[in-house]
């Protein structure tokens, strides 16, 4: 076995509400949703009209600037409505499920026997292509390009992240088929990043047609961006693709059964969940139907529902949907109450990377953290904090400043191609100046993408 890559920098935020390894079936939702904003930079063109009948795998819309990429319905039913936001941007496409589980048949096949073109075509048609994203930019991959490598991270190190070992149980075969399909998409290698100690499922550690890289260390060691940086870093002009484990499983099902089966297992986590557990759902399920009767009710405390983890997830309402790339729903308390002398009090119930709070004296303690931002935004003052949680050979503050002043040349030199907002999520968390760092990184990526488009 190869020597593990030790990630030294980073931070595990000790939150309450880790999911117990018990699998429940969530009740089927009456409504499912596909949310175009999940796919950054997408301009959807609708293919169905309200009232149209759809099956699981029926295209709902496609990308205006890349007409091959279809986005399909996860369930069978009726396309019921469209929610638009500012500038008529489509926010949600809703399907009223009929519970019949009719699937469009794309034809089963062994991916190892297929050509690259056939595999790409199948993925595009089925609506599973958007599961494959690319670096730089962290956007849906361009099927016309060929990546130098494909990365899959087999562990989620994010706060309260789902245990992918547990999720993979019983789906090892589909996962391997999915990897086989991915391996045909690149001339380079498919890299599977596992945790050197915690990943035990043989479906990961003994996966075939891939290079297994072992990692140890705190979050963000499980982020695919960090793994790419340490295994095969991205230089200007390089393209690397990546996909999540559950999407690889779905790709596997597509080739084994010929259908778009969007079932996935998600972790319901967070301090406001009564019984944090795993749930079997279909991608796009309504959050309400997953969390029902499982939320702590306390007078004065409003819960915040998040699709995804607390660092990178999307704020959601109860009638919102589980987002495309998320394996987790987190519920934490809103922090909308003022705190008298909150900045000076000892604050034993708060967590901080700085040792100015007593939290560091209680390493065993888990915290019930809320969404209070704690201060207005300030300019950069404190230095050396971001460097503690970013395990990349990148100068975070200098890169952020180059983005803020829109210096494209400097952004390139400082490695903008290697980063993604999620890799900087911890920097944003620890920032004492409360700067919106993930948004800043996204702005920088957008500027570069536009410049070279």
């Amino acid at each position: 076995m190869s020597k593990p890559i030790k990630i030294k920098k980073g931070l595990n935020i000790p939150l309450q509400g880790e999911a117990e390894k018990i699998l429940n079936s969530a009740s089927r939702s009456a409504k499912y949703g596909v949310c175009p904003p999940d796919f950054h930079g997408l301009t959807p063109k609708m293919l169905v009209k309200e009232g149209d009948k759809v099956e699981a795998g029926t295209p709902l819309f496609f990308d205006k600037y890349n007409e091959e990429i279809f986005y399909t319905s996860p369930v069978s039913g009726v396309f019921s409505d469209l929610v638009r936001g500012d500038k008529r941007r489509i926010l949600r496409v809703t399907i009223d499920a009929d519970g019949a589980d009719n699937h469009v048949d794309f034809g089963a096949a062994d991916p190892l026997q297929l050509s690259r073109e056939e595999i790409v075509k199948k993925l595009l048609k089925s609506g599973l292509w958007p599961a494959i994203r690319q670096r730089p930019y962290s956007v849906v991959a361009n099927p016309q390009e060929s990546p130098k490598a494909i990365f899959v991270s087999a562990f989620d190190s994010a706060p309260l992240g789902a245990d992918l070992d547990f999720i993979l149980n019983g789906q090892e075969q589909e996962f391997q088929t999915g990897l086989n399909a991915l391996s045909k998409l690149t001339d380079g290698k498919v890299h599977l990043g596992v945790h050197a100690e915690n990943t035990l499922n043989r479906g990961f550690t003994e996966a075939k047609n891939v290079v297994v890289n072992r990692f140890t260390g705190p979050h963000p060691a499980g982020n695919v961006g960090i793994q790419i940086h340490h295994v095969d870093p991205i230089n200007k002009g390089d393209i690397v693709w990546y996909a999540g484990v559950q999407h690889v499983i779905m790709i596997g099902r597509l080739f084994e059964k010929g259908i778009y089966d969007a079932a996935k297992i998600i972790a319901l986590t967070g301090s406001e969940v009564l019984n944090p557990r795993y749930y079997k759902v279909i991608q796009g399920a309504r959050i309400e139907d997953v969390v029902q009767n499982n939320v702590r009710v306390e007078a004065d405390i409003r819960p915040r529902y998040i699709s995804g983890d607390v660092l990178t997830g999307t704020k959601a309402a109860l009638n919102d949907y589980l987002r495309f790339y998320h394996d987790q729903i987190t519920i934490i308390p809103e922090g909308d109450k003022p705190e008298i002398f909150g900045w000076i009090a000892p604050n034993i119930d708060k967590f901080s990377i700085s040792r100015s709070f007593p939290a560091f004296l209680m390493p065993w303690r888990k915290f019930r953290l809320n969404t209070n931002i704690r201060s207005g935004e300030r300019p950069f003052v404190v230095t050396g904090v971001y460097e503690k949680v970013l395990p990349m050979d990148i100068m975070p503050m200098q890169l952020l400043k180059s983005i803020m002043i829109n210096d494209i040349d400097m952004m390139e030199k400082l490695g903008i191609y290697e980063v993604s907002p999620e890799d900087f999520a911890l920097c944003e968390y620890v920032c004492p100046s409360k700067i919106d760092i993930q948004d800043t990184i996204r702005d920088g990526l957008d500027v570069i993408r536009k410049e070279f488009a």
Partner: protein
Amino acid sequence: MKALINLIEKLEPNFHKGGRFEKLYRTFEAFQTLLYVKGDVTRSGSHIRDAIDMKRTMFHVIIALIPPLLFGIWNVGYQHYKAIGLEVDFIDQVIFGLTKVLPIIIVSYVSGLAVEFMFASARDHEVNEGFLVSGMLIPLVIPVTTPLWMVAVATVFAVVIGKEVFGGTGMNILNPALLARAFLFFAYPAYLSGEVWVYDALQEGQQFVDGYSGATALAVMFSGEGNMPSDFDMFFGFIPGSIGETSTFAILLGAIVLVATGIGSFKIMASVFLGGLFMGWILNIFAVNDFMAMPAYKHLIMGGFAFGAVYMATDPVSASQTNTGKYIYGIMIGVLTVLIRVLNPAYPEGMMLAILFMNVFAPLIDHYVVEANIKKRLKRMKKVRIQTQV
């Protein structure tokens, strides 16, 4: 307490746009956020945020400044009564010190914060917490003999020219507190030469004891006249000097607070001390006079060395911002301080000038550290290109 918050929130609309006290909004907000953390929640990006903020960061520096401040207050009284040859109680020494030091602190805070509030309102941004620390640092780095009006002038100069013209806290090149001292040093050199740094306005019937000079250890060493205090006195600070700088011991207590909480940069502190020791040692080797031959460690306990290393050089805004740069920056401060002290014929104290000088050079150091990172990335790319061509 809840009622108080409710009252404040009820008053708030008066300060909003169109309200009666619209112009005072930033002032209102500053006091409001000082009283309580507002119930503002995250809107984008990370849903939870680290509990630390600027106020708490700055507050910890203030805590770290308490030991030298308390010692300084006592020492002002102690030195005064020693100078006039009176034996008095500890309490009397402290009371005397308080009557001299407190006015300076108040003048420094009032004049500096007034400027800060004006600029925050004019530019419509939140009042930054940076001055909470600067306002305490300024009194601690000047002699107790400085007239109050000079303190006010120097503070206003430091805040306006040192900070606000660059865009406020976080944008300044020079350390504002040191700039205030440098202003006094060049504008009113008689007060900061280090010759008489004991409160010396005598009342009727009082007179200095025979042979008493009131000169700082550096001035003694520099001129070669007077008696050098013992190492013990210099380390614990029973010597004349600027209010907060004399006791290396008290400063080290503060350093422990800064390093333990992770708020002050240990890299910088340690490098400054190492740089000073190293340069002192070099000068020892080539010693041609008493000052050069003085054991290197004495530099660390004399004058403002320790205070500068712990509280001034570590200012994150004016220091080098890269991790590697911090070592270079710190070592250079130590080296330059000793160099200026010993070899410069005009001033006996080098700490202030060394830090200001390195403040100016910090961006250059960072530039080269960043360039090294960029070169590494370019080299990696070239290597890959060559491999793929073969």
